[in-house]
Every structure is written in C-alpha cells, then in structure tokens.
C-alpha cells in the first residue's frame, strides 16, 4: 500500500476537467456544492458548459435530462444524500425510465463523511440507485479508479451513478489503471474466506487481512467497484474457492453491495454471506475512524467478525 492519500472526489473533479478538454459534448452541473464535489474545476475552465442550478436537486436532474436530449453528456453532482434522496423520483422517472445519457456523481457518501453527522452521511444511495432499472452503480476504490470511471462512464450510454467520498484515502492504482464496468479486481489472494467490498473502506479489509495472516488465516480481498452490474463470475469464484463471503461497504447492510451478493448467491450457489456495513441505524457526528470503530467497520471489528465466523465454518 502506498502512502499517498487522495479523495475519490478529487479523482472525479480532475477527470471531469480532462474529459472536458477532450470532449466538447461533456457538460457539468452542480447544485451549489461544486467546491465540495470538485466539479468546480470543470466549471472554472469551461464556464459556458457548466451549470450551477443552485440548491435545487430535482432541477439538477431535470436540467441534465434536457441537456442530454440535445446530445450533451451531462455529469451532475451533489452530495450523495441530496442527489439520490431529493432527486430520487426525477432520477427514476425523468432520467432512468427513458435511459437518458446522464451521469450522476454523489460525493460525501458513508459514515466516512464524519462530523457533519447523520443528515449528511448517505448510507442508502447504493440501495436506492441499484433498484432502478437501466441504472448502473459504481463506487471507486481510490483516486485513479474514480478518474478512470469518469472516462468509462462518458463512453457508455445510459444513466450511471458514481459514489464518491469526501475523505482522503489510500491510492492503490496509477494513471494507467482502467476501470471496467462489471469487472472487479483482487487486491489480496487468500483461501479461507473472501472479503468483497467497495470504496475506500477496503483499506480496513486489507489491514484486517494482514492481521489475520499472522494468525495463519488467509483471506482474499476483492474490490467490487462495479456494484451494478456485479462481477458475478468473481463472486461465484470466491464462493467456490473459500465458501465464506464477507461483504464490506460504508453503507447500510440493507440493500447495498452485501444484499446484491446475497441475492445472487442465494439462487446460484447458496453460500454464507456475512454483511459488514452500517447496521440498520443512523450515523452521528464524529471522526470517520471513530465512527467506523463504533459501527463495527474498522479493521479490528472486521478481523473479529471473520474469526468468529471461521470458527463456525
């Protein structure tokens, strides 16, 4: 693991700026959070192609749909809770129903959002977006995966949601990395159990896996950035190989990546899936690491959960 730390939202902002230089059809929209989502980088460079609709997330979606009707490729961003929550019905009915070519980016997802508290920590967005037909859902692991995903999203037609985080997190990949929709990657090989997770919280999985190595427990760690479509082949491989799956996400255990994996395995290869995520509770103010500890998402908690379940295996 490298020492460099950068937020996935930075990857979004930097990629959007670069994409804007390469493709004049790309436009960007925000709802008064451009400085936070980092879409302001695009806005400064291309003011004529940047639309800040103000504090109005439904209008953000509707305006993006209109722009896509004229052949533009709109990237619309806000905090995850506002774009997916306030914008939900327009996202479903005005955007996704007709599969318009609008790309959504929700920053400040998960407990990782920290001190702002429960109102700003979106722990339902994967669930909300995943159930919409035509919608694709991506949560990048790091800065470079976010960067690459932005370019990939611009090449593929239809609505997509990119889940981003505020806090700086480890950089795993480099500028040569290419994100592929529907494909995961193995961050660590292992044979006793599998952790399949998404987003920067996988740092905790890797720390837990290292700690478990010292106890002669071998855990594989999979980065499932493409949540929908899910990399079913890899999930099946893991189920066959280790027979014990732990999902990991900074998101509610209801409806997110863990649910998606469980739904898939229950009908293809029934396998124990332990969902590690935010319990069915709201978050609260605190430092990201404090919150992850309290809600059972830090490396130590992950390690304990794995040990406990291995004993029962």
């Amino acid at each position, binding site marked *: 693991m490298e020492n460099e730390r950068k937020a996935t939202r930075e990857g979004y902002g930097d990629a959007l700026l670069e994409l804007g230089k390469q493709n004049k059809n790309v436009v960007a929209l925000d709802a008064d959070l451009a400085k936070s989502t980092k879409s302001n980088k695009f806005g400064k460079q291309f003011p004529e192609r940047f639309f800040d609709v*103000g504090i*109005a997330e439904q209008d953000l979606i*509707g*305006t993006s*749909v209109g*722009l896509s*009707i004229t052949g533009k490729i709109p990237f619309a961003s806000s905090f995850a809770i506002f774009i997916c929550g306030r914008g939900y019905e327009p996202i479903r009915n005005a955007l996704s129903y*007709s*599969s318009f070519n609008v790309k959504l980016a929700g920053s400040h997802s998960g407990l990782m959002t920290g001190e702002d508290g429960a109102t700003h920590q979106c722990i339902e967005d994967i669930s909300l977006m995943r159930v919409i037909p035509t919608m694709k859902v991506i949560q990048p692991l790091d800065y470079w995966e976010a960067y690459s995903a932005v370019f990939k999203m611009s090449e593929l037609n239809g609505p997509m949601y990119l889940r981003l985080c505020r806090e700086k997190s480890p950089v795993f990949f480099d500028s040569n990395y290419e994100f592929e929709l529907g494909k995961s990657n193995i961050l660590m090989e292992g044979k006793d159990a599998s952790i399949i997770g998404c987003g920067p919280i996988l740092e905790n999985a890797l720390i837990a896996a290292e700690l478990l190595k010292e106890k002669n427990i071998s855990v594989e760690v999979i980065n499932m950035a493409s949540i929908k479509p899910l990399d079913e082949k890899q999930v099946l491989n893991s189920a066959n190989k280790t027979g014990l799956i732990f999902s990991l996400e900074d998101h509610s255990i209801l409806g997110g990546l863990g649910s998606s994996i469980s739904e898939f395995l229950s009908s293809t290869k029934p396998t124990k899936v332990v969902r590690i995520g935010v319990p069915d509770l709201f978050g609260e103010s605190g430092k990201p690491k404090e919150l992850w500890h309290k809600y059972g998402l830090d490396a130590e908690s992950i390690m304990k959960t794995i040990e406990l379940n291995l004993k029962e295996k």
Partner: protein
Amino acid sequence: MLLKETELKKLANKVRIHVLKMVFSAQSGHIGGAFSSTEMLVSLYFHEMNFNPKKPDWSERDHFILSKGHACAAQYACMALAGYFSENELMTFRKLNSRLQGHPAAHDLPGIEASNGPLGFGLSIANGIALGKRLDKINSFTFVLMGDGELQEGMIWEAAMNSSQHKLNKLIAFVDWNNLQIDGKVSEIKEVSPISKKFEAFGWNALECNGHDFNELISAIQKAKQSKEKPTVIVCKTIKGKDVSFMENQCDWHGVAPNQEQFDKALNELIIKGESLGK
C-alpha cells in the same frame, strides 16, 4: 402554409373525438385535462412549431414537452394527425405492448422528447433543452405545457428561477389554468394564482389569454417569440372537459373513463360541434 382558424377548430374537434374514443376503448385515461389543453396543442402542432414527423430527431426542430403528461391522449392525437404515425395506432393507447403509454415515454415513441406524467419535471427538462441548443447555436424554440395544479410542485419553481437566470428567451411555457385538480378546485386546495405575477416575480414575461381561442393563443405565442431576454409564460384560462356538456368544469372527469351511455352522448355532442364548423 398556415391554417386558418376554422381549420384549427376542426382539428381540435378531431383531436377531442380521438381522445374520447381512445379513453373509452382503454377504459382508462384522462379526458378532462386533455380537452382543456387541446387548443394549445393544436396551435403548436399545426401553426407554431417547426418539426418533421419523418425526421423526429432533426436537430433544428422546436421541442415540445408535455409536463402535464396525463393529457397525452390529446398529444398523441395531434401527433397522429400531424403524420408521426397512423391514426389507427391511437386505439392501442394504454394497452399492452403499445407505444402510446398511459403517460408519455420518450424511449417508446419518436416525437416524444421526454418522459412525463409525474408532475413537475417538464420545465427543468425544457430548460436543459434550451441550454443545450444555445450551446450548439441552434435558434429554435422550446415549448412546455404545465397544469395549474402542477404549479404546486416545488420543482417547477426551482426550474422557473433557472429559466430567467439563464435568460432563456427561446423558452415558452403554457399553463393550462382550468382551476381543477384531482381532489377539487385548485383555488380551494392550494391556490396558485396570481400565476402571471408569480412568474413575473421569478423574472419571466407573462401573458394571459383564453386557452380555447386560437386567435388569442397564436397572437400570444407570436408575441412570446419576440422576447429578447426573458422566458415567457402564457397563462391560458381553460375549461376542463371542454366541449362535452356534462364533463365541463367537473373535476371527477380528471381520470375516469366514460361508460357506453356517456360515450355515446359525448361523441354525439362532439360530432354536432364538428358539423357546426362546416365541411
């Protein structure tokens, strides 16, 4: 060549007859609001709007968004009469495998720009279209038709601020002001008037007219087209269920299909109305 008023009136009558037959055949649909919007739609499709039914994606076209999507039976009838598809297809309305969905679906039917029905989306979408065309230096107009009850949706006012912020002078909005919504009178549930003053306060030009009078409608649209800086709203006073005596101003005719007896009576009234316009 532009149609004369009598020809437009005959088209409006044909549209209403089609709507009645479509909703009767489907035994579901929205007659009241379709009838109150009919003259606005006919003014657009047969007098004011540039489009090519054979080339629905023509980039220079004027765009039209039916934000009050439940009135789509009237839009479908206009589209069929304008040549987008055959009049026979109208009878598939609201039935399985039809392109004529209960609320308009852009992916199903060429010529439908956006999917609407859930109220409140249309103005934002129209703003986006107008902004996109401005970027491409396309000078055509974008029209949007909203209901008066629909103005209770907050999203409309989010969008209204955006239209004026960006000086979308090529955007022309209609409000179908029939003062009825599903649960009763708009003025008794949540008053939306003074509509013109509200839009003016939001930075728009506002015009008012009788929404069933073609001369007034067309003159208002042509005036709106001259706007140099502001978007324009045309607030159209209308009658829900217009031209069928027992449906006029009855909110219960919002989303109910007629039975055989009601259908026969309504059709008869519309046929008589059509005959009065001459051959």
